[in-house]
C-alpha cells in the first residue's frame, strides 16, 4: 500500500483494500444483509408499479412456494432440477472453464431421453429403460460438452462463445425433433409421451411422485462435493482453475484435464435433461431447459462451487420463481415479475461479494494491521 501513504495529501476520500478472510458468520451476515436490502428495493419497486402492499406480496409468495404440501413438492422438484445443473457446472467453473452451454447440454439430454421413451417405451421394462435413459442422456450431454472443450484444449478456442453458440444449435435440434415427433399432428408440440402406459416415467417412490428426482440429484451432489474436495481429479481441477501455468509447471496435462472435466460437466447437465423430461414434464420442447442453464451459472458461481451452498441458492431462486407465479395469478400480473425480482436480488448478492473481499477505508483512517483474523 505504498502508493497511498496516510500522510499523502492527495489521498482519495475512499480507498479500497483487500480483506483477510472473514470469519464464517460475518461472510453470511453480509450476504444476508444484501438479501434484506434487495427485498426492500423489491418492495419499493412492487409498490411503485402495482400499488400492492409489499407485505401482502411476500406473504403470497410464501404461500405460492410452500402453501400446501403439493406446492412444496413442486418447489422441491424445481430446486432439485436447478441444483442438478448447478452441480454439473461446478467442476467446469472451478477450472475457470466458462461453460455457458448448459442450456444446450440439458436439451440434448432431454432429446435422447424423449427418443428412448418414444421408441423403446413399449419394448423395455421401465426400470431398465430408466437406467438406459440415464446412461444415454449422460453420454449425449458429455458429447455436447466435449466438443467445445476439445477445441479449447487443442487450439484455445474461446469456450464462453463456443458453448453459447452450442445452445442455439441444440435449441434448433430440439425444434427439429419436436416437429418430427409432433403429436397430435398440427399441435407443434410432442404432447405428454406415453400418457397411457407411463413407460419411462419416474415411478412413485415412498408415495411421492418426485422422490426419485430428489434421490438422484442428492447422490450427484454428494458425488461432486467429494469429487471436488477429496479426489486427485478435484485437486487438479483446482490447480488449473487457479493458474494454468502453474498446472503445466507441476507437470499436469492441462488438455486432458480440461476435456475430462467437461465430459463430466456435460454428462451431469445431460442427466438433468433426463430428469426434466422423464421425471418432471414427460415431454420435450424448446423450453424444457427454460433458462436453467443460465440461472445455474449464477447458482454455481455465488456458491463458490460449494455443493451445499448451491442447495441453498437453488431454493432461494426457485422460491422466488414459484412465489412470483403465485403473485401473478393472485393479483393478475404477468409471470415475468419473477424475473425482475430475481434480477434485483441477484444484483445485490453479486454486489455483496465485494464487501466480503474488500474493505473501504475513509481518508485519514489509520491502516490497521490484519484487522480480521480468526
Amino acid at each position: 500500500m505504498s502508493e497511498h501513504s496516510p500522510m499523502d495529501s492527495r489521498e482519495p476520500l475512499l480507498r479500497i483494500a483487500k480483506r483477510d478472510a472473514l470469519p464464517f458468520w460475518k461472510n453470511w451476515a453480509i450476504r444476508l444483509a444484501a438479501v434484506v436490502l434487495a427485498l426492500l428495493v423489491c418492495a419499493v419497486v412492487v409498490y411503485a408499479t402495482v400499488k400492492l402492499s409489499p407485505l401482502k406480496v411476500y406473504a403470497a409468495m410464501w404461500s405460492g412456494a410452500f402453501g400446501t404440501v403439493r406446492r412444496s413438492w413442486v418447489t422441491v422438484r424445481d430446486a432439485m432440477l436447478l441444483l442438478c445443473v448447478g452441480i454439473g457446472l461446478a467442476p467446469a467453473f472451478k477450472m475457470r472453464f466458462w461453460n455457458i452451454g448448459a442450456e444446450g447440454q440439458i436439451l440434448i439430454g432431454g432429446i435422447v431421453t424423449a427418443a428412448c421413451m418414444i421408441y423403446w417405451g413399449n419394448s423395455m421394462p421401465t426400470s431398465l429403460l430408466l437406467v438406459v435413459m440415464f446412461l444415454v442422456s449422460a453420454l449425449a450431454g458429455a458429447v455436447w460438452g466435449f466438443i467445445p472443450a476439445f477445441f479449447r484444449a487443442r487450439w484455445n478456442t474461446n469456450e464462453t462463445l463456443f458453448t453459447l453458440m452450442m445452445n442455439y444449435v441444440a435449441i434448433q435440434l430440439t425444434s427439429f425433433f419436436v416437429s418430427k415427433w409432433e403429436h397430435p399432428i398440427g399441435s407443434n408440440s410432442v404432447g405428454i409421451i406415453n400418457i397411457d402406459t407411463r413407460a419411462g416415467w419416474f415411478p412413485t417412490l415412498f408415495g411421492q411422485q418426485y422422490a426419485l428426482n430428489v434421490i438422484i440429484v442428492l447422490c450427484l451432489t454428494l458425488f461432486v462435493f467429494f469429487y471436488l474436495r477429496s479426489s486427485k481429479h478435484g485437486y487438479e481441477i483446482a490447480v488449473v482453475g487457479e493458474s494454468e501455468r502453474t498446472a503445466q509447471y507441476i507437470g499436469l496435462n492441462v488438455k486432458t484435464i480440461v476435456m475430462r472435466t467437461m465430459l463430466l460437466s456435460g454428462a451431469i447437465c445431460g442427466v438433468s435433461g433426463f430428469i426434466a423430461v422423464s421425471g418432471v414434464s414427460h415431454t420435450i420442447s424448446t423450453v424444457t431447459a427454460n433458462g436453467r442453464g443460465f440461472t445455474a451459472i449464477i447458482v454455481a458461481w455465488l456458491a463458490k462451487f460449494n455443493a451445499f451452498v448451491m442447495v441453498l441458492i437453488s431454493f432461494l431462486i426457485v422460491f422466488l420463481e414459484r412465489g412470483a407465479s403465485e403473485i401473478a395469478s393472485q393479483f393478475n400480473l404477468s409471470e415475468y415479475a419473477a424475473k425482475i425480482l430475481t434480477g434485483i436480488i441477484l444484483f445485490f448478492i453479486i454486489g455483496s461479494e465485494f464487501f466480503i473481499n474488500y474493505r473501504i477505508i475513509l481518508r485519514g483512517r489509520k491502516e490497521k494491521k490484519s484487522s480480521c483474523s480468526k
Partner: protein
Amino acid sequence: MQQIISLLQSSIWFGTVILYGAMGEILTEKGGNLNLGVPGIMSLGAIGGLIGSFFYETRVEEPSAAICLLVTLLCALGLSLFGGLIYSFLTITLRANQNVTGLTLTIFGCGIANFYGSSLNTLAGGVGQISLPVTSAAFRAVLPGLKNTPILNTLGWLVYLSIAIAVILWYFLSRTRTGLNLRAVGENAATADAAGINVTRYKYLAICVGCAISGLGGLYYTMDYIKGTWTSGGSLEALGWLSVALVIFARWKPIHAIWGSYLFGVLNWLYFYFADLLGLVGISVTMTRSSQEIFKMLPYVVTILVLIFVSFRRKREDQPPAGLGLPYFREER
C-alpha cells in the same frame, strides 16, 4: 425476382436489429469487458421506447411525429444506459464477475421488458395488443427520393443510422488516439494503466456508450421490425444472443459487422425462401417444417466455424481482445 427482393428486405430488417446489438458489444469488448447482458440491454431499450411513446401517443390528442421520435429515443437510450450503469458499477467498481453480472442483467432486462410489455398490452385494452401507429410510422419513414427504389423504399432511417454508427465506430477504434487507448485497455489494462490511461473511466464510458447503441437495436426491433407493437416472449432475447454471435463473426470489426449482420439475416430467413429460390433455377424441393428448423441453425453453426477457424489460424488482428473478460484490479498486480 420478387422472392430475392423480399429475402433481401427481410434480411436487412433482421440484420439491423442485431447490427446495433453487435456494435454496442464490440465497443464494450474492445474495452475488455465481455457483457453477456446484451439481450437484456436490447430488451431495456425496446421497452423504454415503447413506454415513452405509449404515454405520449395515447395521452396527447394529436401527437406530433417529431416529439414522438424525441420522447421514444430519449426513453430508450435512458433505460439502456441505466442497464449499462448497473453492469459497469458491478463489474468495474464492485469488481464482480463479468459473465455472472451479464447473465443476471439479461434475466433482469428481459424480465422488465416482458413484464411491462404485457402490462402495456393490458393497458391498451381492446384486442390486448398495444399499437403505436404515429411513432412507428415516424421511425419507418423512408428517406426522401427513394420512394420508388426497390428494397430501399422499405427501410426506415434507423437502418442508415446503424451503418453510419458502424463507420464512425470503425474510425474511432482504428484512427483516433482515444480509440487506440481504449483498445490498449482491452488488450492489457495493467499496461494501459502504467501508460497513464484512466482505465476505470475508459471502461465505464465504453460500456455505457456501448449499451446505448445496443439499446437502439431494441428500439429498432419494436418500432420498425414489429411495427410499434409488443409480444412477450423470447424472440428479442434470441436476437440479442445472435448479436453476441455476430461480434465473433465480424472478428470485432464494425465494418465486417455490417455485411455480417445482413448475411445472418439471409441465413435466418433462407428457410422461408429456399424452396422458391431453387424453383427459380428449376429445382423443385418442398421444405417440411422439420427441415426448416435445421436451416435456422445456420447462423450459429457458421459462427462456430468462424470461431474455430479464427483460433486455428492465430492471425493476430482477428483475435479477441487479450484482456477480454479478465478483471482488472490495480492493487492485485
